[in-house]
């Protein structure tokens, strides 16, 4: 994505990206054909930066996130390149391709949880109902940070406190079902952050949190980012959180990134009709009851045997018949750091991106 001009414009952070995802594709075999659930996704994240990933429910955000650490179920046939920079390990500077690693092997397991931690969309997938929260946290910390049991417990208790759980000693010995929904979510966040990851993948991390605790948790992530240069891939549908947390935003629709730009551009200069529709649907504080919320008309098609065309075609108010439904949409660069997949912009002078 970075052009020479953009590189020149960057200052301190123009090193290699920590994570670089290239042409990621995920296919799933279904009864009636092959579903192209993720269809050629590219993005990169630098150390200390936050990339937001937003998009229609079911567009492939979680599949993409989980592909990075290789934990999608086996029916998900995944291709592409996921480069991760292990420079901090002192190894040669060539990043490794996480996709080429054996998903059950030692190498990926040592990266997962230690260098890359993930906060799952549904907390119950992260915890076993059979063991106490404390037990599960300590086990995780002992694998990745310290063998010492006492020290691991100390770290766990401290992290629970940081995510706003009071009476940690007692909570430590409780089972997941004895926590409220938001407390489970926070315990999972505490577990993910307790190993000081280089890259945090946060899939809808605060959906169950009230706004004051949410603010506290987001602040905690930002402070780890400042202190250790943690990079964050933040999947969320909450555009308020995107606005507060992200440097860059990628908007996904039906398995593809349809627009990508710095956060300010996305809010003030959105290009793709889907991005515009999202911003319009956003409920805003200060609105009135009885006002009908805007939503984007129509529904998402199934990405099975889709002819080459724009996935948003059926719902788009600006579509051009014979163009948008006749070819696959190339990526167009609006400016150095703003790209969009939409024919409305593809004939502009700036030319097409690679």
């Amino acid at each position, binding site marked *: 994505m970075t052009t020479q001009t953009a590189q020149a414009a960057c200052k301190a952070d123009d090193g290699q990206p920590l994570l670089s995802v290239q042409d990621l594709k995920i296919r799933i075999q279904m009864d009636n054909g092959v579903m192209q659930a993720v269809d050629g996704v590219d993005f990169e994240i630098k150390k200390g930066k936050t990339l937001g990933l937003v*998009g*229609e*429910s*079911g567009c492939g955000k*979680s599949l993409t996130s989980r592909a990075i650490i290789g934990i999608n179920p086996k029916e998900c046939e995944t291709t592409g390149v996921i480069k991760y920079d292990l420079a901090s390990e002192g190894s040669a500077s060539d990043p490794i391709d996480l996709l080429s690693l054996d998903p059950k092997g030692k190498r990926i397991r040592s990266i997962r949880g230690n260098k890359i931690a993930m906060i799952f*969309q*549904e907390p*119950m997938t992260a915890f076993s109902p059979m063991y106490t929260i404390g037990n599960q946290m300590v086990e995780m910390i002992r694998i990745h940070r310290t063998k010492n049991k006492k020290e691991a417990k100390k770290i766990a208790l401290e992290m629970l406190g940081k995510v*706003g*759980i*009071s*009476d940690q000693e*007692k909570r430590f*010995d409780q089972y997941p079902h*004895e*926590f*409220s*929904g*938001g*407390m*489970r979510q926070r315990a999972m966040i505490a577990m993910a952050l307790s190993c000081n990851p280089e890259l945090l993948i946060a899939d*809808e991390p605060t*959906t*169950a*949190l*009230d*706004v*004051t*605790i*949410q*603010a*506290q948790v*987001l602040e905690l992530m930002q402070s780890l980012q400042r202190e250790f240069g943690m990079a964050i891939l933040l999947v969320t*549908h909450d*555009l*308020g*959180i*995107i*606005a*507060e947390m992200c440097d860059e935003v990628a908007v996904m629709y039906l398995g593809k990134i349809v627009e990508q730009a710095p956060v*300010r551009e996305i*809010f003030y200069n959105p290009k793709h009709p889907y991005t515009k529709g*999202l911003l319009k*649907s*956003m*409920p*805003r*504080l*200060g*609105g*009135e*009851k009885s*006002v*009908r*919320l*805007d*939503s*984007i008309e129509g*529904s998402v098609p*199934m990405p099975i045997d889709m002819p080459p065309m724009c996935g948003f075609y059926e719902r788009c108010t600006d579509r051009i018949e014979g163009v948008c439904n006749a070819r696959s949409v190339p990526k167009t660069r609006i400016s150095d750091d703003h790209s969009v997949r939409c024919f409305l912009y593809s004939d502009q002078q700036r030319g097409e991106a690679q």
Partner: protein
Amino acid sequence: MSKPILDVVSLNKSFEVKSKKTLWGKPTRVQVLQDISFQLYEGETLSIVGESGCGKTTLGRCIVKGISASSGEVNYMTEEGDTVDFLKLKGKEAKKLRKDIQMIFQDPYSSLSPRMSVFDIIAEPLVANFKLKKSEIEEKVAEIASQTGLNVSYLRRYPHAFSGGQRQRIAIARALIMQPRLIVCDEAVSALDVSIQAQIINLLKDLQESFKITYIFISHDLSIVQNISDRVAVMHLGKVVELAPSEAMFSRPLHPYTEALMSAVPQPDPERKKDRIILEGEVPNPANPPSGCHFHPRCAYRTDKCVQQVPELREVDNGHFSACHYAGELNLKGVQANEAKRA
């Protein structure tokens, strides 16, 4: 206003908490709901907001009787106009009334059976309660699926093959298919992107208009709460601390905790200056609540009175209740009508 469909009187709930360290000692009881009373009118939407862990889900589950309350009454007015205490019902009668009240659970992942196809999950309440032909069931399921934005051709798959937001819509479809009189929606739209969220909220409102459905809407998303509610209840550590018509609550909150909540909503504008009230101090511990007003350790306006005396929930304005000693005296900041609008 219309007649109350639900009258909750002094509801209490406590859980027994065993600690490893007290294996030989007595388990402690933690009071999670404290003396909750409110009325719910037919066809209205009452939203419940509050701190994570304050007891919202527990309250919802006590009402639909997923768990039994420790004490109190949940008086329910049946369609025929009889009043029954929902908590005392047993057996057949309970089963009959239960289909009038549905709950959409906070965590769709654990509330959907992994071994049933999604079609069967959505159809199950129909199959269990009515004698319908297969074709009728298929028709109803298809209708509700498309209303909730689920692709009908997906429905033969199992829950694990759906995304988080799709699973949430499965739970919504399952609750709506019964056309219940009262639905407790527990963070029911929290995993949906804003466009589908809008579609679901509009659907809930349409159904309310057509069938007079009553909603208890538990959510932390205040912009949605503002859009959907007639009244709002704010909970803090097991108690209702403020209850008011939605407009009054947002324009003029009467409890400092409500003010803090409203100030902390992230604004969808990268250039907006943040002006939020950071709550200092620890999140309170329900096993050992602070003296006086439970909110006092984190309240910027506290006085000695707040440390010593427990404030009662009292009516300060018409229909506007607050449990703050200084309700009405403090000049608290709400949300301006057009504050969030961009130029």
